[in-house]
């Protein structure tokens, strides 16, 4: 039901981009695939050698975030660490930030999901509620949410350093997606530290930002995929 209305609730989505050899030079236009489909009469000759690129898309934590400037109540702002942070309890739900996000990664709580029988993910009974991550606020109805770069883990690491001493430079904070990824495709770290892995990767010539031409200066960079093929 919610999917049909296009209301997926996830902080990270995996965009897939296909490329394949075609008689046409490019297949960038909207109806190219459909056209190709209709002309080849079920022979699927266009669909040989289809290759797929996965692009996990979440909040890019832009330095010049278009979402932040438009919130009337300062519910989303920039942290001094460069995080694009979302203040749930300040949000009044104008959804302006979501509209203005060029990556469309902000998600809205259309209903009070955590206490609603119609969304039976066991959040509405005491047992189910025990499964919810205690470090993350349960969002109420009518507020915006998005990837926070697992700010609770960053805070935890900072507190640990404070308590036990040491240097943040030596602490590796792992985000949930990073931990879940078996192929270590996601790297998280401190861009301010030129020796960190993430800084090195950002300087890599394969690194690029999505929608760079908008000058939003996202903090997330992707690595171009390298394939061992003859044609592109």
């Amino acid at each position, binding site marked *: 039901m919610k999917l049909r*209305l296009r*209301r997926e609730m996830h902080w990270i*989505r995996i*965009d897939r981009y296909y490329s394949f050899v075609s008689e046409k030079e490019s297949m960038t236009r909207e109806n190219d695939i459909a056209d190709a489909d209709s002309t080849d009469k079920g022979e699927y000759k266009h669909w040989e050698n289809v290759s797929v690129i996965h692009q996990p898309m979440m909040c890019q934590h832009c330095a010049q975030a278009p979402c932040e400037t438009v919130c009337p109540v300062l519910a989303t702002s920039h942290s001094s660490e460069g995080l694009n942070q979302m203040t749930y309890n300040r949000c009044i*739900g104008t959804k302006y930030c979501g509209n203005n996000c060029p990556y469309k990664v902000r998600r809205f709580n259309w209903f009070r999901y955590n206490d609603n029988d119609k969304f039976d993910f066991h959040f509405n009974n005491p047992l189910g509620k025990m499964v919810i991550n205690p470090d993350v606020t349960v969002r109420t*109805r009518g507020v915006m949410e998005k990837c926070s770069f697992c700010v609770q883990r960053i805070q935890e690491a900072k507190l640990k350093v404070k308590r036990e001493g040491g240097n943040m430079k030596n602490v590796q904070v792992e985000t949930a997606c990073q931990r879940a990824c078996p192929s270590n495709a996601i790297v998280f770290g401190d861009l301010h530290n030129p020796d960190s892995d993430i800084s090195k990767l950002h300087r890599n010539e394969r690194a690029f930002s999505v929608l760079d031409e908008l000058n939003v200066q996202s903090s997330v960079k992707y690595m171009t995929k390298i394939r061992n093929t003859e044609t592109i």
Partner: protein
Amino acid sequence: MIHDSLIRERLVTGDKTAADVTRDISRPILNQPSSAWKIGFTLSLIFLGIFGVSLFWTVWTGIGVWNINKSVMWGWDITNFVFWVGIGHAGTLISAVLLLFRQKWRMSINRSAEAMTIFAVVCAAMFPVFHMGRVWVGYWALPLPNAFGSLWVNFNSPLLWDVFAISTYFSVSLLFWYIGMIPDIATIRDKVKTKTAKFWYNFFSMGWTGSTRSWARYELVSLILAGISTPLVLSVHTIVSADFATSVIPGWHTTIFPPYFVAGAIFSGFGMVATLLVVARKVMNYENYITIGHLEAMTKIIMVTGTLVGIAYLTEFFIAWYSVVEYEQYAFINRATGPYWWAYWSMMSCNLIAPQVFWFKWARTTPWFIFIMSIVVNVGMWFERFVIIVTSLHRDYLPSSWVMYSGSLTEVGLFLGTFGIFFTCFFLFAKFLPVINMSEVKTILRNRE
């Protein structure tokens, strides 16, 4: 001594005297309501009920009952907001700009147009308030000290500008409307018989006597209020346009939005004024005050502003091509040929093409035809906002987020319901207040020597 040219048409026909004006215009107030009024008022109340039900459902359940989604986060709500704000522009414009340009034909229509402004702004304000996910904390958008320490508001946000613009516009329009009405309220005060009526009209007339000193100040204040209302009108729709134009979304971010939205607002506002007045002059027997000449002048403005809006459409389209930015180009091609092509072409034909019939004298002077055209204009302007909001959002940068959107029953109900608010207010206004500015109309009676 009046030196109006002989070739000018009479603004008030039927050789009315000042006493006739008072009698004609205060008749609906002094008499029992007509059956037409009763039927109309009942209908409005029904629509008001629809609004109440839809609003209750929305606030009780959450705005999830609307069909807006992860990419199109504004749909009918903000479309309706811009639609009503646009309508709310003609009133102040007629009173202010036409006062400054000394277009005397405004005198018969400015009162009802200003009333319309105020009611339309009320309708408009419903949407940005109730489109909030947590409307009960909506007051956080005001610059108030609050529970989180004094976390203030974001002066960079166009929505915050809206808060200031709409509230200023509403209150200044109300002041303008009220000050302009004081002499007429005094006239009514001196005509009504019942004690309650006497008390209230006396209360609101604030002891107006018509002294020359008061009139001198009254005229100066009207002029200054007109002078500051004009940039205010411009600023309000400019700021509404900034909701879109400051963003980075292709189809929203266009520098021509401010003047183009203002032209569109005047266009739709005059459309609504024409809708109301064509009916009102017939039902209330005001044909001598709101003459064919008045209607013709309005249609000319509709034609001019419609053309200006059309020029802006074409400019946007051309510059999108000229920019050689693929997002821009795609956004505009998608508008015209994408899944929402019907909305785009409704907008084009209602706003640019249809008003061109007003080049013909017949079209400008036939009331029933003007009525139909005014509805067409209103429909077209609603589609304009729908096109700008929905088609720009449904396909922007990343194709993975491309979606479709269509309004839910609740959203339609809210929209229809605002007509209930609007017409309920308007019928009450027509019953209790003079619909035509008596004191001003009296100044142009003897335009023939």
